[in-house]
């Protein structure tokens, strides 16, 4: 499936990109996280088990077992700190 993946705040800075288009063979948000972790470096560190990050699919926060629809806009970001 094709995905548009967005990164925000600290993750955008650590990954050195705000967004990318991915051709992705997995099914769930967790599969995508594993795929990204495999890039190593900041990807492996920031997305390691136990690190706090959130995943949104089409602009709604989801659990990691959520299925990703084709053409989805997926965002990965740190816990929010507005207000």
């Amino acid at each position, binding site marked *: 499936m094709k995905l548009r993946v967005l990164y*925000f*705040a600290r993750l955008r800075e650590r990954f050195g990109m705000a967004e990318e288009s991915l051709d992705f063979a997995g099914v769930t948000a967790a599969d995508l996280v594993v795929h990204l972790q495999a890039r190593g470096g900041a990807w492996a560190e920031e997305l390691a088990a136990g690190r706090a990050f959130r995943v949104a699919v089409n*602009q709604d926060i989801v659990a990691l077992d959520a299925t990703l629809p084709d053409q989805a806009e997926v*965002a990965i*970001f740190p816990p*929010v*700190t507005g*207000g």
Partner: protein
Amino acid sequence: MKIAVQTQTFDLGIEVAAISQGRTDIGAIASFVGLARDMNEGSGVHAMTLEHYPGMTEKALAKLVDDACSRWTLLDVTVIHRVGRMLPGDSIVLVAVASSHRGEAFAACEFIMDYLKTQAPFWKKEETPKGERWVDARASDDAAAARWNKT
């Protein structure tokens, strides 16, 4: 209902007046303004920048307001959140809630702020004497939001 994400500042008096303008059914307006502080986590902060997720932010704020309206009988709600660079003393966020009686207005105002702090995609980066740093989320904010789930 008014929901805005904007770089420019806002005026509490103007926003509250706009809510009650031309109507006589409102008995209470509760408002909250969040400000940028000059100190956090033990060090000085001389400015901060708020980043957000355009598109999702507006959607998340609309959902917060919808949730509040389903819990309480509200006559109007205004939520304004600023983004971009701000200095200590600057206003960051405004929530104003109108209802027939104060109890609902106070409760809904606090509910919206508690959920905004944990659900709306904003991130603060502070400028300190030691350089820039991203603000970490607080466990106390999760606890504040979670107490609204108690039955």
